[in-house]
């Protein structure tokens, strides 16, 4: 569910996007992180997208916005990453909403990479890190932290499409 939403939000359909589980995050204090939360009264999950303001990341974000990296301000670069995080968790929120109707998501917030050293203190039941390559270039790392307040069990059909995005539903 998460990898599908990451692929849909952090790359275009024309790009190859490979997502692999990694045991730890490299040099994370040099990254910035955009963090979003999806939660219900039964659980809380946090998605943290770690990125650097380096040339390859700037190029990728600019390309997704149909512009040149040199034309992209630092503010618009950060705003774009926040929006992609928003899209990613929006997909998760919708997919999980099929099982947990009382669900909501946060707006994106930025924290420094050094904050990740305190994640263990949140005492999450499940923490997993991912590395994302777009067109064979390492662009993002992502951390998923889940806290459950009850025993949860649900079955996801991986072949089932998410909501019809981009289409206008007229009332």
């Amino acid at each position: 569910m998460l990898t599908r939403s990451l692929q849909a939000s952090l790359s275009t359909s024309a790009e190859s996007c490979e997502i692999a589980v990694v045991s730890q995050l490299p040099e994370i204090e040099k990254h910035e992180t955009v963090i979003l939360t999806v939660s219900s009264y039964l659980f809380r999950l946090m998605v943290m997208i770690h990125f650097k303001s380096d040339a390859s990341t700037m190029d990728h974000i600019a390309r997704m916005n149909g512009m040149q990296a040199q034309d992209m301000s630092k503010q618009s670069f950060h705003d774009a990453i926040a929006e992609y995080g928003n899209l990613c968790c929006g997909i998760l929120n919708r997919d999980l909403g099929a099982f947990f109707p009382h669900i909501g998501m946060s707006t994106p917030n930025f924290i420094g990479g050094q904050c990740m050293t305190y994640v263990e203190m949140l005492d999450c039941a499940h923490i997993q890190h991912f590395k994302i390559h777009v067109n064979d270039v390492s662009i993002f790392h992502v951390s998923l932290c889940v806290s459950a307040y009850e025993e949860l069990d649900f079955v996801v059909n991986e072949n089932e499409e998410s909501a019809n995005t981009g289409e206008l539903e007229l009332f």
Partner: protein
Amino acid sequence: MAQILVVDDSSTVRNEVGDFLKKNGLDVTLAVDGRDGLAKLKADASIKLVVSDVNMPNMDGLTMAEKIRSELGNAGVNIVMLTTENSPLMKERGKAAGIKGWIVKPFKGDAVLATFKKLVA
């Protein structure tokens, strides 16, 4: 004089939607949240369509839609929400506020352009 008001706190979305509509011959005004959107709508009587996010600081999109109907008494302007949300409860609230439609992000301009042009005609 604008035909379409695009309201979103994300400059990425404002620019993406605004640029697409401008390239396709529509006049666009941008607003950063519901409060800004309401003020710009009050100031420009030529706006025929509002395309708005739901979750925004200061004033969210559904509250803005409710105020457009209750405070401005503006039944002529069409309102379409563009949001990551797909909750039936939110849609019901939007319907009660008289919104015309709902789009789940990401924005795919080609899928909605013809309808947008009808809504501003």
